[in-house]
Structure formats: C-alpha cells, structure tokens
C-alpha cells in the first residue's frame, strides 16, 4: 500500500524546530516586561537601542550556528571579532572609498580566518576544538600586534552610517534581518543541506558521496564572514579598536545558540533560534540593569543562564531517553508499521 503524500502543513511543521518556538515565546514575554519597565516605553528609539545592543551578538551567533550545524565547535569567534575590530579601526579614513575599503578588508580578514579554520578541520583533520582553540590564541596575538592597546581612529561618519535608520528601521535590525535572510538562502542550497547532513552523521554523509571537505570548509568561511560583519558593526558602535573586545563573546555566543535552539548537536541549528537567544540574553540584562543589578553580575548571570538552559534541555532529553528505553520491553517485538 502506498504511503499517502505528507500534507503541506505537515511538511512545514516538520521543518520548524520546536525549541525555537518555545524560546520565541519566552522572548515575547521578556520583551513585554522590557518595554513596560524601560523608560520611554515602546518607541522607535527604544527598539533601536535594544536592536543595537543585541545585533553584534546576534550576527556572531548566526555565524557560529553555521559551524555548529555542520557538527563542529568554533572557539575562535571572540578573537576573530577582536581581530576584525582592530583591523578595521586602523584602516578607516574620512572618505567613503576608504571606509568601503576598510569594510572589505574586515570581511576578507574574517573570511580568511574562517578559511584557515576550515582547512585545519577538514584537510588537516584536526579536532575542531583544538584547531579553533589554537587559532583563538594566534588571532589574539595578531590583534595585540596590530593594536597593543585600545585606540584606532573611527570617523564619525562611519559610526553614523551604521547606527542610523533606513526607512525608519534601525540599521542594526536591517543587518540582523539580512543575516537571517542569507542563512535561509544558504540553507536551501545544496551546500546547506549537505552541511546539516555532515553535522548529523559525517560517516553517512561521506557514504552518500557528499563533498564533506568542501562543505565543512565553507561552513567555517561563512562563519568567519558573519564574524566580520559583527566586528565591523561593533567597530562602528564603540568607535575604536580594542584587541580584547571579543573575549567575552565566546560564552555569550554559545549561550545565545543554546537559549534559542536548545542544543549544540550537529545537524541541528537555526539562525532564528540564535537571534532569539541573543535577544533574550540582551533583554534579560537590560531588565536586570533597570532594576539596579550592577554590571559586575553580568558574568554570573550569563553563566547561570547558560547552565540553566543547557541543564533544562539536557534533563529533558535524559528523561526522554529513559522513557524511550523503558517503552521497549524485552521479549516483545515492536509491531510492524503498516505501509
């Protein structure tokens, strides 16, 4: 008997990650709290502020999601952003041409760093943790060489361009949306499908004759490009270069991804989830700050949120595994599925 074609609704439903729906709900609730307690309420200005604050993290998290989906770990996210930051901050001039050049240079640096990561992981076959950890320190050192202490010259016009409004929408929101759009475009290409396949089961992917090496390299390259975008936006926002600016981002990026998609497992991952996670983090911080909690605790809060988010997700899956194991009673065959 032929299985009936899955309905369109069922197909759409199967592609939406349930965890993202949960976290979007959490975000919605938090946003309500945020905008009712913040001074100025819901206005174009307050939306822009939140968007500006969360954008760098959100875009960086989308970048890392590429690598996580392909089954790897990218520990170099913070230092690549620092590197792009110092490179761009030391190569901007007043003229538009030099600013475009600076941006292009930043993108090249990010993509290049990603390429190196990708080559180390797929061609040299190093474990992604070791490769990206080593590169984290190399890029840190390079950033320190370029700019030993915070400085650089970021012209006001540059900052203005990246923090202003486009048709009433803050630039940072445009960039976040752009990142999501690029993610979904890439996701629907052959490479996108291959990346998820590789992340899920690299042996099976290879057996299915997928170009696993090229796929992984591209995942890291795209991640690097997104880090570059985040770094360029960050440069505009802080108006200077700082070789250590990205260091705390390693933790926050992974917290955002886990908050949004609930897992770091390969073969899964949603840019929307990562953006939602970044917004949740930022909103929580803002709410805490507005009730008087000092920024000292930002670190503890991030760590606790991370542990809570991962712990909850993991407890749930541990119990699900136990339930599934208990459901299979020894000595009884599973009934054959009618087909």
């Amino acid at each position, binding site marked *: 008997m032929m299985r009936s074609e899955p309905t369109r609704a069922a197909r759409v439903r199967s592609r939406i990650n349930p965890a993202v729906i949960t976290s979007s709900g959490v975000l919605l609730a938090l946003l309500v709290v945020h905008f009712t307690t913040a001074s100025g309420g819901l206005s174009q200005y307050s939306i822009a502020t939140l968007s500006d604050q969360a954008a760098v993290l959100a875009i960086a998290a989308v970048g890392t999601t590429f690598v996580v989906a392909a089954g790897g*770990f990218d*520990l170099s996210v913070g230092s690549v952003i620092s590197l792009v930051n110092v490179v761009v901050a030391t190569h901007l001039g007043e003229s538009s041409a030099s600013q475009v050049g600076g941006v292009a240079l930043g993108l090249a640096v990010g993509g290049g760093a990603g390429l190196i990561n990708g080559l*180390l*992981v797929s061609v*040299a*076959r*190093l*474990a992604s*943790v*070791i*490769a990206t*950890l*080593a*590169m*984290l*320190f*190399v890029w*840190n*050192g*390079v950033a*320190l*060489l370029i700019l*030993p202490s915070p400085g650089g010259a970021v012209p006001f016009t540059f900052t203005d361009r990246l923090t202003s409004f486009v048709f009433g929408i803050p630039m940072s929101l445009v960039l976040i949306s752009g990142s999501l759009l690029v993610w979904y475009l890439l996701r629907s290409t052959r490479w996108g499908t291959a990346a998820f396949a590789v992340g899920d089961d*690299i*042996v099976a992917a290879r057996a299915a004759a997928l170009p696993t090496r090229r796929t992984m390299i591209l995942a890291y390259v795209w991640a690097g490009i997104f880090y570059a975008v985040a770094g360029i936006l960050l440069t505009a926002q802080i108006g200077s270069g700082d070789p250590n600016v990205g260091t705390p981002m*390693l*933790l926050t990026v*992974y917290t955002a991804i*886990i908050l949004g998609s609930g897992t*770091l497992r390969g073969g899964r991952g949603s840019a929307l989830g990562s953006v939602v996670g970044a917004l949740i983090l930022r909103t929580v911080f803002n709410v805490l700050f507005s009730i008087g909690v000092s920024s*000292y*605790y*930002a*670190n*503890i*809060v*991030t*760590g*606790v949120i*991370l*542990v809570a988010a*991962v*712990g909850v997700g*993991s*407890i749930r*899956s*541990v119990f699900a595994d136990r339930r599934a194991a208990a459901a299979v009673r020894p000595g009884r065959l599973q009934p054959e599925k009618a087909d």
Partner: protein
Amino acid sequence: MVDTDNGATVAAPAPSPHRALTDRARAFVHTTAINVLAVYVLTVLLIIGATFWLPGIRVVSFTWTIVVLSSVTAVVAFGQGAVVLTGGFDLSIPWVITSGGLLLTTLTQGTNGRLWWALPIVLLAGGMVGLCNGLGVAYLQLSPIVVTLATNVVLQGVVLLFTGSAPQGVAPPLIVDLMSKRLVGGIPAVAFLLALFVILGVVLLQRTAFGRQVYAIGNNSRVAYLTAVPVRRVRIFVYVLSGSCAALGGILLSGYAGRSYLGMGDAYLLPSVAAVVIGGTSVLGGRGSYVGTFGAAALLAALAAVLDGLGGSVAIKTIILGLCVLVAALFSSRRTG
C-alpha cells in the same frame, strides 16, 4: 594459507621485508613514545641553545630556572590531561587558579600559622568546583566545553562579588620560600615537590585501576560502560582532580608572585592545553601520558624564557604558543575521521 573462491588453498603472498620496515617506521613515528622523546630532546636543545643566544646563561642553573617556571603549568596540566584523556576539556582552570590563590591568601592573611588547615581547604574548594563540572558532564550529559566555560565565568563573577576589584592578599612566607629558595646542590625546593607530584601522577594514571579506567573511557566509553567501568564516577573524579590541581597551581602561583591578584590564572589555560597536546595526549581521548605532558610543560617554559630573553612581546609569545599547539596536534597519533 588462504582459501580461494573455488576451494583451493594457496599461500598468501609474503610481505616484502622493505614494506614491513617502512610501515613499522611510519607507525612508530605516530606513537606517543616518539612524541615524548621529541619533547624532551627539544627542551634540552633549547636550554643548550639559550646558553649561546642569551648572555650570562649557564646550563644547570637555567635548567633549574625552567623547572621553577614550569611548575604551575606542570601541575595544572596534569588535571587537564586527565580530563582530556576521557575526551573532555576543562576551560574553568583560569578562575579556579585565581580562586585558589585568592582563597589561600585570604585564609592565611600572609602568615604561616594557618597553612596547615588553609591548604586542605583550598584544595578541597578546587575539587568542589571540579565536582560541579563533573556532575554536569557525567549526569546531565552536557558538553564539557559548555559546562567548564560556564563554571569559569560564574566563578569569575563570584570572586568579583566578594573582592570588589582591588588587588588582594599576600602569600604566606612558606609558600613564597617554596617557590624561590634553593636547597642542596642548588636544586629549587619546588623541584622536590614536583618530582613527588610527577611520580604520584604517573603511578595514578598508568598503574592503578582508576588510571586504566580513565584510558578505557577515552578510548571507547560505550565499551568501557559495557565492561563494568563506572564511567560516570570516573568522569566526575577526573574533573575533581583537575579542579584540585588547578587550586594547587593557584597556591604555587601565589607563592611565585608573592601575592594573589585577580586574573592571575588567565595566562595558564593555553599552556595547560598546549602542554597536554604537545606532550602527546590525543584530544580524542584514550592516548597519552603525563610524562609527555610534564616534558611539554618544561618545553613551553623554556620557549617562553628564551623568547623573553630575546625580547619578544606577549603578543608574539601567544602566537607562537598557538602555532606550537597546531604543529603538535598535526603530528599527533590520532586525528578525526
């Protein structure tokens, strides 16, 4: 004798002796043994080289200097190595070191009298942090990177909470002496402690049932579980071990610096991982030995000292350290599929 398809038996073709030799040579190059040997040879070469490149350096005294310089990394890398052997990572080392040092100076208030109860408390505290890490990894099945990253940051926040941001505490004189005084024959006091530590560490990993269980888990945790290895308990214990070693490292470091200060442990994360990887331990777990790790810690200390003497900046040292890890990982005996 080989059965062929039609039932006849024929002799298998004898492997040419040439082929066997090169295969064996290639296999040998990738073993841990040659890795460890290379590490010690390189260290010796560096020390000898230093006498030529740097003014006023003499081999024996420089060697002892290296031993002292490498002591913190050597101690911390033991714990990190044990964790890596099970296939994990401990990224919480920086702030466990700092917490250990700060706790020691706060409890002892710079005197020797309280050491006898302060020392065990500090080591215990490090172990408790490790316990949290271990529980997260073993029971909640969290990724070790995520758990230890979170622990590191939470610890940082907690320490900042309790100390504000002012520089803290003076180290007790006994610990300071441990790190600075030389005993018979010009041998540094801490060298004796290190020798004891290395012996205990190697015995623990290579000669006890616990050590074998650690290697078993790293090689194949499923098989280990099926052969009645208490995987979860062993996993938790390696993280406890790592936490205690990091706390011990903090104690030694506070003696070396004379005081403890915020962020003192930050510089030791990379060297601990570097020493483990360069010393021949595979990041996939199950392969490696503390002998190699200790040698790599000495190698890194020698490298840092030579670079310092030649005028290298922190930036250059960080880059070279990162590159060394890459090179060592490339020559490692096991890589991903």
